[in-house]
C-alpha cells in the first residue's frame, strides 16, 4: 500500500459516480405521484389496508403475530408510524410518506407500510 494517505483521481471518480447515482435515484423516487392506497404488510401478508386521499386521517393499532403492537396513522393524506414496540424506532423516525412506491419499514417486526396506486393508474372506485 501507499505510504501516505491521499485520494487518487480514481477514488474521486468512484465517489463522483456514486454521488450522481444516489442523487439521480433520489430525484427519480421523490417525483412519484401521490398514491391512493396504503397497505400494511407483515412479512408478505396484508394486515391493514386503507384508501388514501388528501383528506385521509386515521389512527390504527395493529397487533402483530409476535404480540407487538404498531400504530399506523395518517393526517392530511400523509401516512406515518405513530408508535411501535421495537428496539430502534427507525420506522417512527422515518416520518410521513404519501407518494406511490414510498415505504416505511420496521425491520425488527418484519412490518412494511407502503403506498400504492395513484395517477397513471385508473382512479379507484368503490364497489
Amino acid at each position, binding site marked *: *500500500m*501507499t505510504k501516505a*494517505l*491521499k*485520494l*487518487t483521481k*480514481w*477514488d474521486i471518480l*468512484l*465517489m463522483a459516480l*456514486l*454521488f450522481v*447515482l*444516489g*442523487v*439521480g*435515484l*433520489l430525484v427519480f*423516487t421523490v417525483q412519484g405521484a401521490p398514491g391512493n392506497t396504503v397497505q400494511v*404488510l407483515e*412479512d*408478505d401478508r396484508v394486515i391493514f389496508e386503507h384508501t388514501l386521499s388528501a383528506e385521509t386521517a386515521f389512527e390504527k393499532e395493529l397487533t402483530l403475530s409476535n404480540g407487538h403492537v404498531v400504530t399506523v396513522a395518517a393526517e392530511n393524506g400523509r401516512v406515518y408510524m405513530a408508535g411501535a414496540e421495537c428496539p*430502534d424506532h*427507525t*420506522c417512527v*423516525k*422515518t*416520518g410521513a410518506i404519501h407518494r406511490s*412506491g*414510498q*415505504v416505511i*419499514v*420496521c*425491520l*425488527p417486526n*418484519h412490518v*412494511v407500510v*407502503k403506498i400504492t396506486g395513484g395517477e397513471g393508474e385508473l382512479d379507484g372506485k368503490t364497489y
Partner: protein
Amino acid sequence: MERPTKRLTQLSLLLSCALVLGAVERWIPLPVPVPGAKIGLSNIVVLAVLLRYGLKEALAVAFMKSLVLMALFGSPVSFLYSVCGGLGSVLVMALMKKRWSEKFSVMGISVAGAAVHYLMQLTVAALILRTPALYGYFPYMVLMSIPTGVFTGAAAFYLNRVTEKLDRV
C-alpha cells in the same frame, strides 16, 4: 509476521477491537431515515486486516465479528444482514486491492466496500421481508457510503500504522 503466534495474537487483538467498535456503533445513529444504517466502524478493522494480512484473515474477522455480535446483542436475522454485508464487502475490497491497488487508495477501496455492504444488507432485507420496495432506500445508502467509506478507509490506514509497531514488540 513470520511467527504464527504473533500473527494469531495480533489478529485476536484486532478482532476484539472490531467487537468493541461494533458494540459502540449501536449507540451512534446516523441522521438518515434508513433502518439499520450504521457508519460501519468495525469495518475499519476488517479493512485494516485485509490490507495487512490478506483475504482469508479478513473474511475470518468479518465472520467472527458478526457471530459474536449476534450472540451479544442481535438476533439470527441481524446476523444474516451483517454477515452477508460483511463478507460481500470484503470480497469486493479484496478484488480492488488485488487488481487496482495503484489506482485506488485505501479510501476508494473502502467507499466501494461500504456501498457493497449496504447493498448486500438491503438485498438480504428485501429477500427476508419479500419487499422489493426496500430498494427505495438504495439512493440514501449509495450517498451514505461516500462519507462513511472515506472515514473508515482513512481510519484503517492509521490503524495499520499502529499495528505495524506491534511487530517490533
